[in-house]
Every structure is written in C-alpha cells, then in structure tokens.
C-alpha cells in the first residue's frame, strides 16, 4: 500500500507565533478566527484527499486477503446450494427408494448406483439429495442459533456497557455463571433440562452458550468508549445520553461483535453435530441436517459404510473452515494494528 489513507489526522506544522497560550485576553477574538480557519483548512484537506472510513478501509484490506476470498467463496457456495437445493438435488430427500431399501442389510448399505451417485443412506434414501438439502437445515440451525445468541448477548452487553456500575456488576456475574461451565457441557446441561430434545432445544442450547462471549465483548468495547474523546465530544455538545449510547457507542462496538458472530457460526455447526452424536440432537429422522447425519447414522454405521460419515463430515469441515477463514480475516482487517 503506497497511498496514505487519511491526511486529516496529521496536524499541520504550527508556527511559533500561533501558540494558543500566548494569545492573551485581548486577542481572544482573533484566536477564535484562527480556529475557524484551521477547521476549514482541515475540512478541505479531508474532502480533497477523500478520507477513508474505518469500514471502507477494512473492506479494502479484506478484498486483498486470499483467506477472506476463499472463506467468502465457500460461504457463498454454501448459501447458494441451500437456496437452490430443490433445483440441484436429484431426488426427494425424504423418499425411501425400493431399489435401495431392497439392498439394505445389517452389514450392507448400497453404494453408488444408477441415479444415486453417492448411494443410499441407512434407510434407503438418496445420500446426495440429503446432503444437498442438509445445507438448508445446517444453515438454519447455525444462523438462528448465532442470531439468538447475538441478540441476547448484545442486549446484556449493551445494558452493562451503557450503565456501568452495579448493573454492569450484576450482569457480568450472570455471564460468570454461564462461563463457569465448558461450552459443550453447558449445552448438554441445557438440552438435558428440557424434557425432550428437539431441533429447538439444540438451537437454544447452542445459542445460549454463545451469549456470554457476545455480552462480554460488547461490554468491554463500550466501557472502553465511555471515556473516549468522541463520546466526551458528543456529551459536551449536549447529545442525549440514550443517543450517545445508541448512535455513538453501539455502532463502534458492533464491528467486533459481528466478526465474533462469523466465528461463532462455525462453532455452532460443530456443536450441533456434537449434540447429535451424544444422542441429544433433533430426533426427527426425516429432517436432513449434516450434524445429525454425521453424529447419528454416520458414526453408528461407520463400520458398515463409512461414507455415511465422510460426506457430511467433509461438508461440515469445509463450511466451518469457510466461516473461520472469513471471520479471522475480518478480525485482522478491523484491527487498527494492521492499518497502514
């Protein structure tokens, strides 16, 4: 990178006679004029050079990072497959085919045959179609869990960060309790607390596990801003307190949270698979979801036909990798240490 990003920030060299301390009482007016002139000068400088916002700057750095491009491509493909699943999938994912079921035996699950490129699953359904449709459920579970976790976490974090003091203290003790258990164990506990496991208990459990992370991240970032210059400036200008929190502090703090959400998505998908493996997943066998395909039938029939595990596992690994790559590239891009 050769061109400088911002000129506005660099102070112009000050002449000796311009020192404000020397201005004296009588020349207050002149001092005001000089300040005005300086402000105009600054405004022109930034307008002329096209100062780059932090966001656009980060985006530009992101576009040059191959990891980000790979990650974004994987995610885009994943979302496209999920959207167009009915057009891509050769068969109905729920239908059990006679030509496949007839070949099922305790020690045999048929592999690739005519019309079924990846062969059958444990119930005589088309594995390829289930994988393609599985992207929908996986996306649904991952995104919803992350969004719920994000929403609750942002609410808690914003309240704690905006008020500080005892409110902050109480809310942070709450997250302490949530953080007192390792993530998967907390998820297991939460699912166990429900009387029956369902798709929703999985989503909620995975969501709640991510709440303290979001809450702490946002709180830390907002507390750091309470003392910062732009908040002080807004307060001095008489901006109302709730506007300072909502318009000045929250948007600045959200970047880190959104990056974290990208990383959480990959964790959420893997956690959902782990819950399925422990027998705490979605009991609906018709619904195709990668985590359930891998964690349930995949490992149960590993010795009969390991492909039942390989394909969904591969899908999960690639998608998790995609979110991790993009998330970390984003984190790098917004890190001021990397600004040049």
């Amino acid at each position, binding site marked *: 990178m050769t061109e400088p990003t911002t000129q506005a920030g660099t102070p112009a060299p000050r002449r000796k006679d311009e020192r404000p301390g020397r201005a004296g009482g009588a020349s207050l007016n002149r001092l005001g004029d000089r300040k005005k002139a300086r402000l105009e000068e600054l405004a022109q400088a930034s307008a002329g050079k096209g100062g780059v916002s932090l966001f656009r700057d980060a985006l530009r750095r992101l576009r040059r990072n191959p990891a980000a491009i790979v990650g974004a491509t994987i995610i885009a493909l994943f979302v496209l497959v999920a959207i167009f699943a009915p057009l891509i999938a050769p068969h109905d994912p729920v239908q059990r085919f006679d030509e496949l079921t007839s070949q099922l035996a305790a020690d045999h699950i048929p592999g690739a045959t005519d019309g079924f490129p990846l062969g059958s699953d444990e119930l005589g359904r088309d594995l390829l179609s289930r994988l393609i449709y599985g992207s929908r459920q996986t996306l649904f579970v991952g995104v919803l869990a992350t969004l719920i976790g994000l929403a609750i976490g942002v609410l808690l974090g914003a309240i704690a960060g905006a008020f500080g003091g005892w409110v902050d203290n109480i809310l942070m*003790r709450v997250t*302490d*309790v949530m953080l*007192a*258990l*390792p*993530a*998967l*164990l907390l998820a*297991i*506990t939460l*699912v*166990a*607390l429900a*009387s029956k496991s369902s798709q929703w208990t999985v989503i909620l459990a995975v969501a709640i596990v991510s709440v303290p992370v979001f809450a702490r991240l946002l709180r830390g970032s907002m507390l750091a801003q309470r003392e910062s210059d732009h908040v002080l400036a807004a307060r001095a200008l008489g901006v109302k307190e709730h506007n300072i929190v909502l318009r000045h502090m929250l948007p600045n703090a959200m970047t880190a949270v959104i990056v974290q959400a990208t990383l959480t998505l*990959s964790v959420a998908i*893997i956690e959902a*698979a*782990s819950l399925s*493996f*422990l*027998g*705490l997943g979605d009991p609906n066998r018709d619904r195709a979801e990668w985590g359930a395909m*891998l*964690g349930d039938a*995949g*490992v149960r029939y*590993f*010795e009969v036909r*390991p492909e039942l*595990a390989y394909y969904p*596992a591969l899908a*999960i*690994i690639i998608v*998790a*990798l995609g979110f*991790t*790559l993009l998330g970390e590239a984003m984190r790098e891009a917004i890190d001021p240490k990397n600004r040049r």
Partner: protein
Amino acid sequence: MLRVIVRRLLQLVVTLIALSALIFIWLRNLPGGPVDALLGERATPETRALLTKALGYDQPIHVQYGKFMQRILTGDFGNSIRTGDPVIEVIGRAFPATVELALAAMIVAVGLGIPLGYLAARWRGRALDHLTVVGTLLGISIPIFFLGYLLKDVFTQNIHWFPPSGRVGIGLDNTNITGFFVLDSLLTREFDATADALWHLILPAVTLATIPLAVIVRMTRASVLDVLNEDYVRTAEAKGLRHRTIRGRHVLRNALLPVVTTIGLQTGALLSGAVLTEKVYNWGGLGTLITDSITGSRDYPVLQALILLAALVFVVVNLLVDLSYAFIDPRVRVR
C-alpha cells in the same frame, strides 16, 4: 496479591452458589423430574405421592435447597438413580480415568503446540509455517468425535497398532490402587501393564488433544510474531546478544504469557472434549458418566454433582492461571 486471591475466591464461591441454586431449581421443576425418573413406566399417582414425600420433594423449594446445600457441604450428594450407589463413589470411580486422559492430552497439546508454534513463527512464510496454519485451521474445524472414529478406523482396523477402546487389555490383571492405571502399574512395577495402559491412552489422548493443540499452536505463533517485532528485541540484537539468549530470555519468555492463559482455558474446557472422546473410545470416565446420566432415564443426582464439579474445576483452573501470571510477569506482581 493476597487481596486479589481472596477476592477471586469469594467470587468463585458466589458463582458456585448461584450455579447450584439454578441447577437445583431447574432440575426440580422438570416435567418428568426425579420422581418419574425413579418410578419409570409403573408410576401410579399413589406411588408418586409416596415417593415425593419420602424424598422430601413436597416441602417448599427453599427448604429443600437448604437441606441440599447442607448435605453437599458434608459431601453427601445422594445416591445414583441408575445404580443406587452413592454419587460420590460413582464419580470417584470415574474421576481418575478422565484425569489420566486429560493429562495425557495436555502433555501432547503443550509438548507439541509450543515448539510447533514457535518454529512456525520463526520460519514465517516457509513450508512449515504454511503447514501449521492449514493444520490448525483443520484442527478447529473438524468435529473431534469424527476424528476419533477416523483414527480408530485407520489405526485399529486397517493397521493394528492400537487397541480400539477401553483402558485395559483383555486378560491383563493389573492391581488397582489409585485408579490411575499408568501410575498404579508403575507403583507395583508391573511394567507390562504400564505399557498396556499407555497403549490404550495414545489414540484417545491424541483425539482429545486436537483442539487444545490447534489453539496453542496458533496462540504461540501469533504471540511470538508480536514479540519479534518489539523494540526490545531489536535492541537486544543491536547490543550483540547471542541469538540463543535473545530467543530464550527476550522472545520466548514474553511470548509465553498469553500462551499460559490459553493453556489454562483449554485445560478447563477439556471436559467438553472428554465427553465426546470418551464416548468414541468407551473410556469409562466422567465423560461417559455424563452421557450415561443424560441419555435414557436421567440420573439427576449424578448429573447435578457432575455439573458442580465441572464448574469447580473450570473456575479453579482459571484462578490458577491468573495467579501464575504473577510468577511469569513481574509487572502483575507489583499491582
């Protein structure tokens, strides 16, 4: 320093009390709570009422909680619903297996992770660096139970290097003293049993180590890279210090600080992975106990004690990490 410790200990107590209260209230307000779990299908309204009274579930919840805390503090967690044995004994029997596994996993993760991360940083941009970066990315993206099955398939079915599951070989009669099989066999000098125990330990330990290993490598690499750019390293070089001295005293020592935090956090979180790993290898430790007490009929007394134990371990480990800072970083000691 002492004030910090006292404050953290108080925080720990508060966290544990809050957690115990939450678990207690939740577990008792379940549809299909402990009474139904005990009676199963044969429950009639009469037997249910009888048992509810016998177990004290008819009393107000705060009275129940008071009694519950009283019993916990005297070490009485009740009896397992599944086996009828005291919970303390059930957990005590499973505890050494998991500690042994966790210890082995952390030895693998730290022993490989720090050197790998350090070398990757030193040779940044070279083949080893690229390999570690890709490897660690895969490590955190792969569901570890799947990796477990994969390793089991390759190393026990295709090439018979390791035993597929369990902690002891068939026909091996080892003396049980502490429940730590490696330690026991060393104490009694049954070295064939030591070899056997280690043999069984390797695959599960590697499986469980995947995530901590990946995280430690990444943290070490990033941290060393940061330190290498510091002014004091350049100064040390300019002073003409030997590279070995710079690496040891200036780079590694400063770079290890965040790594220690990571090791602590990962150790505390190990029980998550243990639940999965132990199921894959039929290990019979705390992880197996957790799975068993959740699936099928739920074993609430065991579950409740396990959750409290896990929280205790997690919080204590984190406390130890904070304290260890004082020994590594003199700046913290001053404060």
